[in-house]
Protein backbone atom coordinates (compact mmCIF):
# COMPACT_ATOMS: atom_id res chain seq x y z
CA UNK A 1 0.00 0.00 0.00
CA UNK A 2 1.15 3.51 -0.79
CA UNK A 3 2.25 6.01 1.82
CA UNK A 4 -0.54 7.88 3.57
CA UNK A 5 -1.22 11.49 2.54
CA UNK A 6 -1.83 12.51 6.11
CA UNK A 7 -0.71 10.79 9.27
CA UNK A 8 -1.86 11.96 12.68
CA UNK A 9 0.05 10.56 15.63
CA UNK A 10 -1.27 10.88 19.16
CA UNK A 11 -2.73 14.30 18.50
CA UNK A 12 -4.06 15.97 21.64
CA UNK A 13 -5.79 19.30 22.22
CA UNK A 14 -7.11 20.61 25.52
CA UNK A 15 -9.36 23.61 26.09
CA UNK A 16 -8.90 24.44 29.74
CA UNK A 17 -9.77 21.26 31.59
CA UNK A 18 -11.63 19.70 28.66
CA UNK A 19 -9.70 17.38 26.39
CA UNK A 20 -11.28 18.02 23.00
CA UNK A 21 -9.03 15.65 21.09
CA UNK A 22 -7.33 12.85 23.01
CA UNK A 23 -4.35 10.97 21.56
CA UNK A 24 -5.85 10.59 18.11
CA UNK A 25 -3.87 8.66 15.52
CA UNK A 26 -5.06 7.98 12.01
CA UNK A 27 -3.91 7.76 8.40
CA UNK A 28 -5.57 9.17 5.31
CA UNK A 29 -4.63 7.31 2.13
CA UNK A 30 -4.11 8.92 -1.25
CA UNK A 31 -7.37 9.38 -3.13
CA UNK A 32 -9.40 8.28 -0.18
CA UNK A 33 -12.82 9.58 0.84
CA UNK A 34 -12.61 9.58 4.62
CA UNK A 35 -15.35 10.53 7.07
CA UNK A 36 -14.90 11.65 10.64
CA UNK A 37 -18.19 10.87 12.31
CA UNK A 38 -19.39 11.73 15.77
CA UNK A 39 -21.99 13.58 17.80
CA UNK A 40 -21.57 17.34 18.16
CA UNK A 41 -18.92 18.26 20.69
CA UNK A 42 -16.94 15.07 20.15
CA UNK A 43 -13.88 17.00 18.95
CA UNK A 44 -14.12 16.20 15.24
CA UNK A 45 -14.19 19.86 14.19
CA UNK A 46 -11.26 20.65 16.48
CA UNK A 47 -9.33 17.81 14.90
CA UNK A 48 -10.03 19.21 11.44
CA UNK A 49 -9.10 22.74 12.48
CA UNK A 50 -5.77 21.45 13.78
CA UNK A 51 -5.05 19.91 10.38
CA UNK A 52 -5.94 23.21 8.68
CA UNK A 53 -3.78 25.08 11.18
CA UNK A 54 -6.41 27.13 13.00
CA UNK A 55 -5.80 25.35 16.29
CA UNK A 56 -2.44 24.41 17.71
CA UNK A 57 -2.19 20.88 19.09
CA UNK A 58 -0.90 20.51 22.65
CA UNK A 59 0.99 17.41 21.60
CA UNK A 60 1.24 14.94 18.76
CA UNK A 61 2.32 15.16 15.16
CA UNK A 62 0.48 16.14 11.99
CA UNK A 63 2.46 14.65 9.15
CA UNK A 64 1.53 15.54 5.56
CA UNK A 65 3.41 13.45 3.00
CA UNK A 66 6.33 13.06 5.33
CA UNK A 67 6.49 16.69 6.39
CA UNK A 68 5.63 17.86 9.90
CA UNK A 69 2.98 20.58 9.62
CA UNK A 70 3.20 21.86 13.20
CA UNK A 71 5.40 24.89 12.48
CA UNK A 72 3.59 25.73 9.22
CA UNK A 73 1.04 28.58 9.45
CA UNK A 74 -2.41 28.00 7.88
CA UNK A 75 -1.67 30.03 4.75
CA UNK A 76 1.31 27.83 3.83
CA UNK A 77 -0.32 24.46 4.41
CA UNK A 78 -1.03 22.47 1.26
CA UNK A 79 -4.46 21.47 2.53
CA UNK A 80 -7.65 23.38 1.87
CA UNK A 81 -10.86 23.50 3.80
CA UNK A 82 -14.49 23.93 2.90
CA UNK A 83 -16.20 25.73 5.75
CA UNK A 84 -19.57 24.78 7.16
CA UNK A 85 -20.81 28.35 6.62
CA UNK A 86 -19.10 28.25 3.20
CA UNK A 87 -17.37 31.54 4.13
CA UNK A 88 -17.70 32.97 0.64
CA UNK A 89 -16.33 36.49 0.43
CA UNK A 90 -19.50 38.58 0.13
CA UNK A 91 -17.75 41.47 -1.63
CA UNK A 92 -16.38 39.32 -4.43
CA UNK A 93 -18.24 37.61 -7.24
CA UNK A 94 -18.12 33.87 -7.85
CA UNK A 95 -15.18 34.12 -10.21
CA UNK A 96 -13.05 36.19 -7.83
CA UNK A 97 -13.98 33.93 -4.94
CA UNK A 98 -12.71 30.89 -6.81
CA UNK A 99 -9.65 32.76 -8.08
CA UNK A 100 -8.72 34.04 -4.61
CA UNK A 101 -6.38 31.21 -3.67
CA UNK A 102 -4.75 31.21 -7.11
CA UNK A 103 -4.16 34.97 -6.95
CA UNK A 104 -2.40 34.46 -3.60
CA UNK A 105 -0.12 31.94 -5.29
CA UNK A 106 0.81 34.60 -7.84
CA UNK A 107 -0.16 32.49 -10.86
CA UNK A 108 -0.29 34.23 -14.24
CA UNK A 109 -3.67 35.71 -15.17
CA UNK A 110 -4.28 33.39 -18.09
CA UNK A 111 -3.57 30.34 -15.95
CA UNK A 112 -5.96 31.60 -13.26
CA UNK A 113 -8.69 32.16 -15.84
CA UNK A 114 -8.34 28.61 -17.17
CA UNK A 115 -8.32 27.07 -13.70
CA UNK A 116 -11.41 29.07 -12.64
CA UNK A 117 -13.21 28.02 -15.82
CA UNK A 118 -12.27 24.38 -15.15
CA UNK A 119 -13.56 24.64 -11.61
CA UNK A 120 -16.85 26.23 -12.71
CA UNK A 121 -17.15 23.37 -15.16
CA UNK A 122 -16.42 20.77 -12.50
CA UNK A 123 -19.11 22.05 -10.14
CA UNK A 124 -21.48 22.83 -13.03
CA UNK A 125 -21.83 26.52 -12.35
CA UNK A 126 -20.93 27.89 -15.77
CA UNK A 127 -22.66 31.19 -16.39
CA UNK A 128 -22.79 32.22 -12.74
CA UNK A 129 -19.24 33.57 -12.63
CA UNK A 130 -20.36 37.18 -12.26
CA UNK A 131 -22.89 36.57 -9.47
CA UNK A 132 -22.30 37.79 -5.95
CA UNK A 133 -22.72 35.20 -3.16
CA UNK A 134 -25.98 36.76 -1.94
CA UNK A 135 -27.48 36.12 -5.39
CA UNK A 136 -26.88 32.36 -5.10
CA UNK A 137 -29.04 29.60 -3.65
CA UNK A 138 -27.75 27.44 -0.80
CA UNK A 139 -26.74 24.63 -3.14
CA UNK A 140 -24.93 27.02 -5.48
CA UNK A 141 -23.04 28.61 -2.59
CA UNK A 142 -21.96 25.13 -1.52
CA UNK A 143 -20.60 24.46 -5.01
CA UNK A 144 -18.73 27.74 -5.13
CA UNK A 145 -17.18 27.00 -1.76
CA UNK A 146 -16.14 23.58 -3.03
CA UNK A 147 -14.72 25.01 -6.24
CA UNK A 148 -12.80 27.65 -4.32
CA UNK A 149 -11.27 25.06 -1.98
CA UNK A 150 -10.39 22.75 -4.88
CA UNK A 151 -8.97 25.43 -7.17
CA UNK A 152 -5.56 25.16 -5.52
CA UNK A 153 -5.53 21.42 -6.19
CA UNK A 154 -4.89 20.42 -2.59
CA UNK A 155 -3.57 16.97 -1.77
CA UNK A 156 -6.15 16.83 0.96
CA UNK A 157 -9.47 18.63 1.11
CA UNK A 158 -11.13 19.09 4.48
CA UNK A 159 -14.90 19.46 4.43
CA UNK A 160 -16.63 20.67 7.58
CA UNK A 161 -20.23 19.45 7.60
CA UNK A 162 -20.45 20.08 3.85
CA UNK A 163 -24.10 19.11 3.52
CA UNK A 164 -25.53 20.33 6.81
CA UNK A 165 -26.99 23.54 5.40
CA UNK A 166 -28.77 21.85 2.49
CA UNK A 167 -32.28 20.43 2.48
CA UNK A 168 -32.79 16.69 2.34
CA UNK A 169 -33.29 16.19 -1.40
CA UNK A 170 -30.40 18.44 -2.34
CA UNK A 171 -28.25 16.70 0.27
CA UNK A 172 -28.66 13.33 -1.42
CA UNK A 173 -27.84 14.71 -4.87
CA UNK A 174 -24.85 16.56 -3.50
CA UNK A 175 -23.51 13.40 -1.86
CA UNK A 176 -23.19 11.76 -5.26
CA UNK A 177 -21.83 15.00 -6.68
CA UNK A 178 -19.08 15.12 -4.05
CA UNK A 179 -18.21 11.49 -4.72
CA UNK A 180 -18.02 12.13 -8.47
CA UNK A 181 -15.77 15.16 -8.00
CA UNK A 182 -13.53 13.30 -5.59
CA UNK A 183 -13.17 10.42 -8.08
CA UNK A 184 -12.47 12.79 -10.96
CA UNK A 185 -9.76 14.69 -9.11
CA UNK A 186 -8.29 11.76 -7.27
CA UNK A 187 -7.63 13.95 -4.23
CA UNK A 188 -8.14 12.79 -0.66
CA UNK A 189 -11.30 14.12 0.97
CA UNK A 190 -11.82 14.23 4.70
CA UNK A 191 -15.41 14.98 5.68
CA UNK A 192 -16.47 15.90 9.17
CA UNK A 193 -20.09 15.05 9.85
CA UNK A 194 -22.54 14.13 12.58
CA UNK A 195 -24.81 12.41 10.08
CA UNK A 196 -24.17 8.67 9.93
CA UNK A 197 -26.13 8.19 6.70
CA UNK A 198 -23.98 10.81 5.03
CA UNK A 199 -20.78 9.19 6.23
CA UNK A 200 -21.93 5.70 5.23
CA UNK A 201 -23.02 6.84 1.79
CA UNK A 202 -19.90 8.76 0.82
CA UNK A 203 -16.90 7.49 2.67
CA UNK A 204 -14.59 4.59 1.92
CA UNK A 205 -13.55 4.60 5.57
CA UNK A 206 -15.23 6.04 8.63
CA UNK A 207 -13.71 7.04 11.94
CA UNK A 208 -16.28 7.17 14.73
CA UNK A 209 -15.34 9.65 17.40
CA UNK A 210 -16.63 10.16 20.91
CA UNK A 211 -15.40 12.61 23.55
CA UNK A 212 -12.12 13.24 21.74
CA UNK A 213 -11.32 9.57 21.20
CA UNK A 214 -11.63 7.54 18.01
CA UNK A 215 -13.72 4.49 18.87
CA UNK A 216 -13.40 2.67 15.57
CA UNK A 217 -11.96 3.16 12.10
CA UNK A 218 -12.99 1.08 9.13
CA UNK A 219 -15.03 0.75 5.97
CA UNK A 220 -18.77 1.49 6.43
CA UNK A 221 -19.67 -2.21 6.19
CA UNK A 222 -17.25 -3.16 8.98
CA UNK A 223 -18.34 -0.34 11.23
CA UNK A 224 -21.97 -1.24 10.68
CA UNK A 225 -21.67 -5.01 10.83
CA UNK A 226 -18.85 -5.31 13.34
CA UNK A 227 -19.16 -2.34 15.67
CA UNK A 228 -16.35 -2.21 18.20
CA UNK A 229 -18.57 -1.29 21.11
CA UNK A 230 -22.08 -0.29 22.09
CA UNK A 231 -21.46 3.39 21.34
CA UNK A 232 -20.46 2.72 17.75
CA UNK A 233 -23.27 0.22 17.37
CA UNK A 234 -25.83 2.71 18.62
CA UNK A 235 -24.43 5.69 16.74
CA UNK A 236 -24.31 3.97 13.36
CA UNK A 237 -27.83 2.87 12.70
CA UNK A 238 -30.36 1.35 15.07
CA UNK A 239 -29.36 -1.52 17.32
CA UNK A 240 -30.88 -3.83 19.90
CA UNK A 241 -28.66 -4.68 22.83
CA UNK A 242 -29.27 -7.89 24.76
CA UNK A 243 -27.37 -8.35 28.02
CA UNK A 244 -26.55 -12.01 28.47
CA UNK A 245 -24.63 -14.39 30.71
CA UNK A 246 -22.39 -17.16 29.42
CA UNK A 247 -23.63 -20.35 31.09
CA UNK A 248 -21.55 -22.95 29.28
CA UNK A 249 -18.84 -23.28 26.65
CA UNK A 250 -18.37 -26.59 24.85
CA UNK A 251 -17.70 -28.09 21.43
CA UNK A 252 -16.97 -24.71 19.87
CA UNK A 253 -20.25 -23.26 21.05
CA UNK A 254 -21.37 -21.08 23.91
CA UNK A 255 -24.67 -21.27 25.69
CA UNK A 256 -26.06 -17.88 26.64
CA UNK A 257 -28.81 -16.97 29.06
CA UNK A 258 -30.35 -13.69 28.00
CA UNK A 259 -31.89 -11.27 30.46
CA UNK A 260 -34.81 -11.15 28.04
CA UNK A 261 -35.77 -14.58 29.26
CA UNK A 262 -34.51 -17.21 26.87
CA UNK A 263 -31.39 -19.17 26.08
CA UNK A 264 -29.54 -19.56 22.82
CA UNK A 265 -26.35 -20.98 21.37
CA UNK A 266 -23.62 -18.92 19.82
CA UNK A 267 -21.05 -20.56 17.52
CA UNK A 268 -17.94 -19.32 19.34
CA UNK A 269 -15.84 -20.81 22.08
CA UNK A 270 -13.74 -17.83 23.14
CA UNK A 271 -16.13 -16.65 25.86
CA UNK A 272 -15.57 -17.07 29.59
CA UNK A 273 -18.15 -19.11 31.46
CA UNK A 274 -19.93 -16.86 33.92
CA UNK A 275 -19.01 -13.63 32.17
CA UNK A 276 -21.61 -11.02 31.25
CA UNK A 277 -21.66 -9.88 27.64
CA UNK A 278 -23.84 -7.77 25.38
CA UNK A 279 -25.30 -9.11 22.19
CA UNK A 280 -25.97 -6.52 19.52
CA UNK A 281 -28.52 -7.23 16.83
CA UNK A 282 -29.68 -4.87 14.08
CA UNK A 283 -33.47 -4.49 13.78
CA UNK A 284 -33.43 -6.02 10.30
CA UNK A 285 -31.67 -9.13 11.66
CA UNK A 286 -34.15 -9.84 14.43
CA UNK A 287 -36.44 -12.75 13.62
CA UNK A 288 -40.03 -12.21 14.65
CA UNK A 289 -42.47 -15.07 14.33
CA UNK A 290 -46.02 -15.64 15.50
CA UNK A 291 -44.96 -18.71 17.50
CA UNK A 292 -41.99 -20.94 18.18
CA UNK A 293 -38.70 -20.48 20.02
CA UNK A 294 -37.28 -17.33 21.54
CA UNK A 295 -38.51 -14.65 23.85
CA UNK A 296 -42.22 -14.05 24.21
CA UNK A 297 -42.99 -10.47 23.27
CA UNK A 298 -45.88 -8.13 22.78
CA UNK A 299 -46.12 -5.70 19.90
CA UNK A 300 -46.19 -2.12 21.17
CA UNK A 301 -46.60 -0.46 17.81
CA UNK A 302 -45.65 -0.82 14.19
CA UNK A 303 -44.85 1.99 11.80
CA UNK A 304 -44.87 1.87 8.05
CA UNK A 305 -41.87 3.83 6.70
CA UNK A 306 -42.23 3.10 3.00
CA UNK A 307 -39.46 0.71 2.08
CA UNK A 308 -39.39 -0.76 5.58
CA UNK A 309 -41.74 -1.26 8.49
CA UNK A 310 -40.45 -0.86 12.02
CA UNK A 311 -42.07 -2.69 14.93
CA UNK A 312 -41.40 -2.15 18.61
CA UNK A 313 -41.79 -5.19 20.79
CA UNK A 314 -41.80 -5.39 24.60
CA UNK A 315 -40.02 -8.41 26.08
CA UNK A 316 -40.86 -10.05 29.44
CA UNK A 317 -38.01 -8.27 31.25
CA UNK A 318 -39.38 -4.88 30.19
CA UNK A 319 -36.83 -4.38 27.44
CA UNK A 320 -38.16 -2.87 24.22
CA UNK A 321 -36.59 -4.06 20.98
CA UNK A 322 -36.99 -2.88 17.41
CA UNK A 323 -37.50 -5.17 14.46
CA UNK A 324 -37.50 -4.06 10.85
CA UNK A 325 -38.63 -5.74 7.70
CA UNK A 326 -38.45 -4.74 4.07
CA UNK A 327 -41.84 -4.11 2.51
CA UNK A 328 -40.93 -5.78 -0.76
CA UNK A 329 -43.99 -7.08 -2.58
CA UNK A 330 -42.72 -10.67 -2.43
CA UNK A 331 -42.66 -10.54 1.38
CA UNK A 332 -46.34 -9.77 1.54
CA UNK A 333 -47.76 -7.40 4.09
CA UNK A 334 -46.28 -7.57 7.59
CA UNK A 335 -49.33 -7.79 9.77
CA UNK A 336 -48.32 -6.46 13.17
CA UNK A 337 -50.84 -4.89 15.46
CA UNK A 338 -50.51 -3.48 18.93
CA UNK A 339 -51.03 -6.24 21.48
CA UNK A 340 -50.09 -9.15 19.20
CA UNK A 341 -48.11 -11.90 20.91
CA UNK A 342 -44.93 -12.79 19.06
CA UNK A 343 -41.72 -14.73 19.48
CA UNK A 344 -38.43 -12.89 19.09
CA UNK A 345 -35.34 -14.82 18.08
CA UNK A 346 -31.75 -13.87 17.50
CA UNK A 347 -30.19 -15.60 14.47
CA UNK A 348 -26.76 -16.60 15.84
CA UNK A 349 -24.98 -15.39 12.69
CA UNK A 350 -26.39 -11.87 13.07
CA UNK A 351 -25.46 -11.39 16.72
CA UNK A 352 -22.30 -9.42 17.60
CA UNK A 353 -20.69 -9.80 20.97
CA UNK A 354 -19.76 -6.37 22.30
CA UNK A 355 -17.52 -5.45 25.15
CA UNK A 356 -20.23 -2.99 26.25
Amino acid at each position, binding site marked *: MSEPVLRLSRLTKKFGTVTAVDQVSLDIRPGEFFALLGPSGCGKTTLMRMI*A*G*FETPDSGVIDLEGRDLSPV*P*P*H*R*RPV*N*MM*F*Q*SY*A*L*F*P*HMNVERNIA*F*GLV*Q*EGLPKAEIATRVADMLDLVQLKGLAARK*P*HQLSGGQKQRVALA*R*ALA*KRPKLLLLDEPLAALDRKLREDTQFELMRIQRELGASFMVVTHDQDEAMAMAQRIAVMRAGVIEQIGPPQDVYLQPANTFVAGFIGKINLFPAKVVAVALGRSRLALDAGFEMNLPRADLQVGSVITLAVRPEDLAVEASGEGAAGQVLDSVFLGETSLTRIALPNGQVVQAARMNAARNGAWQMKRGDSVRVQIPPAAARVLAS
Partner: protein
Amino acid sequence: MKRGLTPAHVTFLAFGFAFLYVPIALLILFSFNDSRLVTVWGGFSTRWYASLWSNAQLVASLRASLIVAVTSAAIATALGTIAAYALARFGRFSGRSVFSAILYAPLVLPEVITGLSLLLLFVAFGVERGLTTVIVAHASIGMCFVAVVVYPRLAGMDRSLEEAAMDLGATPLRTFLSVTLPLAAPAIASGFLLAMTISLDDLVIASFTSGPGSTTLPMRIYSQVRLGVTPEVNAISTLMILFVAVCLLLGVLITRRAAPDRTA
Protein backbone atom coordinates in the same frame (compact mmCIF):
# COMPACT_ATOMS: atom_id res chain seq x y z
CA MET B 1 -51.45 47.49 22.36
CA LYS B 2 -52.71 49.98 19.84
CA ARG B 3 -50.14 51.08 17.34
CA GLY B 4 -50.08 54.05 15.02
CA LEU B 5 -50.26 57.74 15.74
CA THR B 6 -52.89 59.12 18.07
CA PRO B 7 -53.37 62.91 18.40
CA ALA B 8 -51.43 62.78 21.65
CA HIS B 9 -48.48 61.13 19.92
CA VAL B 10 -48.49 63.77 17.19
CA THR B 11 -48.50 66.53 19.76
CA PHE B 12 -45.58 65.06 21.70
CA LEU B 13 -43.70 64.46 18.51
CA ALA B 14 -44.30 68.01 17.34
CA PHE B 15 -43.09 69.43 20.66
CA GLY B 16 -40.03 67.23 20.60
CA PHE B 17 -39.06 68.20 17.10
CA ALA B 18 -39.82 71.87 17.79
CA PHE B 19 -37.60 71.79 20.85
CA LEU B 20 -34.75 70.35 18.79
CA TYR B 21 -35.10 72.17 15.53
CA VAL B 22 -36.85 75.53 15.99
CA PRO B 23 -33.62 77.22 17.16
CA ILE B 24 -31.75 75.80 14.17
CA ALA B 25 -34.54 76.78 11.80
CA LEU B 26 -34.45 80.33 13.19
CA LEU B 27 -30.71 80.51 12.70
CA ILE B 28 -31.00 79.36 9.10
CA LEU B 29 -33.90 81.75 8.49
CA PHE B 30 -32.02 84.76 9.84
CA SER B 31 -28.94 83.92 7.79
CA PHE B 32 -31.06 84.99 4.83
CA ASN B 33 -32.14 88.24 6.56
CA ASP B 34 -31.38 91.40 4.63
CA SER B 35 -31.28 93.50 7.77
CA ARG B 36 -28.08 94.06 9.74
CA LEU B 37 -30.09 93.67 12.92
CA VAL B 38 -30.16 90.01 13.75
CA THR B 39 -33.64 89.74 15.20
CA VAL B 40 -35.48 92.09 12.86
CA TRP B 41 -36.61 90.61 9.53
CA GLY B 42 -35.65 92.94 6.69
CA GLY B 43 -36.46 90.81 3.68
CA PHE B 44 -34.75 87.87 1.96
CA SER B 45 -31.15 88.22 0.89
CA THR B 46 -28.07 86.09 0.40
CA ARG B 47 -25.71 89.00 0.85
CA TRP B 48 -24.24 87.69 4.09
CA TYR B 49 -23.11 84.55 2.30
CA ALA B 50 -21.36 86.76 -0.23
CA SER B 51 -19.79 88.97 2.41
CA LEU B 52 -18.46 85.86 4.22
CA TRP B 53 -15.80 85.42 1.62
CA SER B 54 -14.52 88.95 2.11
CA ASN B 55 -14.13 88.35 5.83
CA ALA B 56 -10.51 87.22 5.84
CA GLN B 57 -10.59 86.07 9.48
CA LEU B 58 -13.62 83.85 8.94
CA VAL B 59 -12.19 82.35 5.78
CA ALA B 60 -8.87 81.67 7.52
CA SER B 61 -10.57 79.87 10.39
CA LEU B 62 -12.78 77.94 8.00
CA ARG B 63 -9.63 76.78 6.27
CA ALA B 64 -8.02 75.88 9.60
CA SER B 65 -11.11 73.95 10.65
CA LEU B 66 -11.25 71.98 7.43
CA ILE B 67 -7.55 71.09 7.58
CA VAL B 68 -7.91 69.99 11.20
CA ALA B 69 -11.11 68.05 10.53
CA VAL B 70 -9.81 66.08 7.54
CA THR B 71 -6.33 65.38 8.92
CA SER B 72 -7.43 64.47 12.42
CA ALA B 73 -10.25 62.31 11.09
CA ALA B 74 -7.79 60.44 8.86
CA ILE B 75 -5.44 59.77 11.79
CA ALA B 76 -8.35 58.89 14.06
CA THR B 77 -9.71 56.44 11.49
CA ALA B 78 -6.41 54.63 11.13
CA LEU B 79 -5.76 54.40 14.87
CA GLY B 80 -9.38 53.71 15.81
CA THR B 81 -9.64 50.88 13.29
CA ILE B 82 -6.46 49.29 14.60
CA ALA B 83 -7.72 49.60 18.18
CA ALA B 84 -11.08 48.06 17.23
CA TYR B 85 -9.26 45.24 15.41
CA ALA B 86 -7.18 44.51 18.49
CA LEU B 87 -10.29 44.40 20.67
CA ALA B 88 -12.24 42.24 18.25
CA ARG B 89 -9.54 39.79 17.17
CA PHE B 90 -6.81 39.33 19.72
CA GLY B 91 -9.04 37.37 22.05
CA ARG B 92 -8.63 37.81 25.76
CA PHE B 93 -5.18 39.35 25.89
CA SER B 94 -4.03 40.53 29.27
CA GLY B 95 -5.26 44.03 29.98
CA ARG B 96 -8.01 43.78 27.38
CA SER B 97 -10.76 45.17 29.62
CA VAL B 98 -8.48 47.97 30.80
CA PHE B 99 -7.63 48.73 27.20
CA SER B 100 -11.29 48.90 26.17
CA ALA B 101 -12.16 51.04 29.19
CA ILE B 102 -9.32 53.45 28.42
CA LEU B 103 -10.39 53.56 24.80
CA TYR B 104 -13.96 54.49 25.63
CA ALA B 105 -13.22 56.81 28.55
CA PRO B 106 -12.76 59.98 26.47
CA LEU B 107 -16.33 59.54 25.23
CA VAL B 108 -17.69 60.27 28.69
CA LEU B 109 -14.89 62.43 30.07
CA PRO B 110 -15.85 66.15 30.25
CA GLU B 111 -14.30 67.95 27.30
CA VAL B 112 -12.86 70.61 29.60
CA ILE B 113 -10.81 67.95 31.34
CA THR B 114 -9.68 66.34 28.09
CA GLY B 115 -8.70 69.75 26.78
CA LEU B 116 -6.89 70.72 29.95
CA SER B 117 -4.98 67.45 30.13
CA LEU B 118 -3.90 67.77 26.51
CA LEU B 119 -2.81 71.33 27.14
CA LEU B 120 -0.73 70.19 30.11
CA LEU B 121 0.83 67.46 27.96
CA PHE B 122 1.79 69.88 25.22
CA VAL B 123 3.21 72.38 27.71
CA ALA B 124 5.11 69.67 29.57
CA PHE B 125 6.75 68.50 26.37
CA GLY B 126 7.36 72.01 25.18
CA VAL B 127 5.30 71.55 22.05
CA GLU B 128 4.43 74.85 20.45
CA ARG B 129 0.69 75.11 20.07
CA GLY B 130 -0.79 75.51 16.64
CA LEU B 131 -2.69 73.53 14.02
CA THR B 132 -0.66 70.40 14.74
CA THR B 133 -1.61 70.28 18.40
CA VAL B 134 -5.30 70.74 17.54
CA ILE B 135 -5.00 67.92 15.02
CA VAL B 136 -3.39 65.63 17.60
CA ALA B 137 -6.05 66.49 20.16
CA HIS B 138 -8.91 65.88 17.76
CA ALA B 139 -7.35 62.69 16.47
CA SER B 140 -7.22 61.31 20.01
CA ILE B 141 -10.91 62.06 20.60
CA GLY B 142 -11.99 60.96 17.13
CA MET B 143 -10.12 57.68 17.51
CA CYS B 144 -12.48 56.59 20.32
CA PHE B 145 -15.53 57.31 18.20
CA VAL B 146 -14.09 55.44 15.24
CA ALA B 147 -13.29 52.45 17.47
CA VAL B 148 -16.82 52.46 18.87
CA VAL B 149 -18.30 52.45 15.36
CA VAL B 150 -15.89 49.91 13.81
CA TYR B 151 -15.70 47.41 16.70
CA PRO B 152 -19.22 45.95 16.39
CA ARG B 153 -18.73 45.46 12.66
CA LEU B 154 -15.49 43.52 13.20
CA ALA B 155 -16.87 41.59 16.14
CA GLY B 156 -19.97 40.62 14.18
CA MET B 157 -18.01 39.50 11.14
CA ASP B 158 -17.93 35.75 10.45
CA ARG B 159 -14.46 34.67 11.57
CA SER B 160 -14.44 31.89 9.04
CA LEU B 161 -14.17 34.49 6.26
CA GLU B 162 -10.72 35.44 7.49
CA GLU B 163 -9.84 31.81 8.13
CA ALA B 164 -10.94 30.93 4.60
CA ALA B 165 -8.66 33.63 3.19
CA MET B 166 -5.70 32.28 5.15
CA ASP B 167 -6.61 28.72 4.23
CA LEU B 168 -6.42 29.79 0.58
CA GLY B 169 -2.90 31.07 1.08
CA ALA B 170 -3.36 34.71 2.02
CA THR B 171 -0.85 35.99 4.59
CA PRO B 172 -2.37 37.64 7.67
CA LEU B 173 -1.66 41.06 6.15
CA ARG B 174 -3.23 40.12 2.79
CA THR B 175 -6.20 38.70 4.66
CA PHE B 176 -6.67 41.96 6.51
CA LEU B 177 -6.34 44.04 3.35
CA SER B 178 -8.43 41.95 0.99
CA VAL B 179 -11.11 40.57 3.29
CA THR B 180 -11.34 42.27 6.67
CA LEU B 181 -10.87 45.83 5.49
CA PRO B 182 -13.33 45.76 2.56
CA LEU B 183 -15.98 44.18 4.76
CA ALA B 184 -15.47 46.72 7.52
CA ALA B 185 -15.19 49.61 5.05
CA PRO B 186 -18.73 50.96 5.57
CA ALA B 187 -18.19 51.18 9.32
CA ILE B 188 -14.75 52.71 8.82
CA ALA B 189 -16.20 55.31 6.46
CA SER B 190 -18.94 56.18 8.96
CA GLY B 191 -16.27 56.41 11.64
CA PHE B 192 -14.29 58.82 9.47
CA LEU B 193 -17.32 61.04 8.87
CA LEU B 194 -18.19 60.97 12.55
CA ALA B 195 -14.66 61.92 13.57
CA MET B 196 -14.71 64.74 11.04
CA THR B 197 -18.00 66.23 12.26
CA ILE B 198 -16.85 65.97 15.87
CA SER B 199 -13.67 67.84 15.00
CA LEU B 200 -15.64 70.49 13.12
CA ASP B 201 -18.01 70.97 16.05
CA ASP B 202 -15.44 71.10 18.79
CA LEU B 203 -14.90 74.36 20.60
CA VAL B 204 -13.64 73.43 24.04
CA ILE B 205 -10.72 71.14 23.22
CA ALA B 206 -9.63 73.37 20.33
CA SER B 207 -9.62 76.38 22.65
CA PHE B 208 -7.22 74.60 24.98
CA THR B 209 -4.89 73.25 22.37
CA SER B 210 -4.75 75.88 19.63
CA GLY B 211 -2.18 78.61 19.38
CA PRO B 212 -1.92 81.85 17.51
CA GLY B 213 -2.90 81.53 13.87
CA SER B 214 -4.79 78.29 14.41
CA THR B 215 -8.21 79.59 15.37
CA THR B 216 -10.86 77.10 14.25
CA LEU B 217 -14.26 78.11 13.00
CA PRO B 218 -16.20 77.34 16.19
CA MET B 219 -13.63 79.40 18.15
CA ARG B 220 -13.99 82.28 15.68
CA ILE B 221 -17.78 82.19 15.85
CA TYR B 222 -17.72 82.06 19.62
CA SER B 223 -15.41 85.04 19.91
CA GLN B 224 -17.43 87.05 17.39
CA VAL B 225 -20.71 86.29 19.13
CA ARG B 226 -19.29 87.73 22.34
CA LEU B 227 -19.14 91.04 20.46
CA GLY B 228 -22.69 90.52 19.21
CA VAL B 229 -24.36 88.14 16.79
CA THR B 230 -23.95 89.20 13.20
CA PRO B 231 -25.88 87.83 10.20
CA GLU B 232 -22.52 86.62 8.90
CA VAL B 233 -22.22 84.27 11.85
CA ASN B 234 -25.67 82.96 11.06
CA ALA B 235 -24.59 82.38 7.47
CA ILE B 236 -21.41 80.49 8.33
CA SER B 237 -23.28 78.47 10.97
CA THR B 238 -25.87 77.52 8.37
CA LEU B 239 -23.08 76.30 6.09
CA MET B 240 -21.68 74.23 8.94
CA ILE B 241 -25.07 72.70 9.67
CA LEU B 242 -25.37 71.82 6.00
CA PHE B 243 -21.93 70.21 5.95
CA VAL B 244 -22.55 68.16 9.08
CA ALA B 245 -25.98 67.11 7.84
CA VAL B 246 -24.47 65.91 4.57
CA CYS B 247 -21.81 63.94 6.46
CA LEU B 248 -24.42 62.27 8.68
CA LEU B 249 -26.61 61.46 5.69
CA LEU B 250 -23.64 59.93 3.90
CA GLY B 251 -22.87 57.88 6.98
CA VAL B 252 -26.44 56.54 7.10
CA LEU B 253 -26.43 55.77 3.38
CA ILE B 254 -23.13 53.92 3.57
CA THR B 255 -24.37 51.80 6.46
CA ARG B 256 -27.63 51.08 4.59
CA ARG B 257 -25.85 50.02 1.43
CA ALA B 258 -23.62 47.69 3.39
CA ALA B 259 -26.58 46.02 5.10
CA PRO B 260 -27.12 43.17 2.56
CA ASP B 261 -23.52 42.02 3.14
CA ARG B 262 -24.17 41.38 6.78
CA THR B 263 -26.35 38.39 6.19
CA ALA B 264 -23.83 36.77 3.86
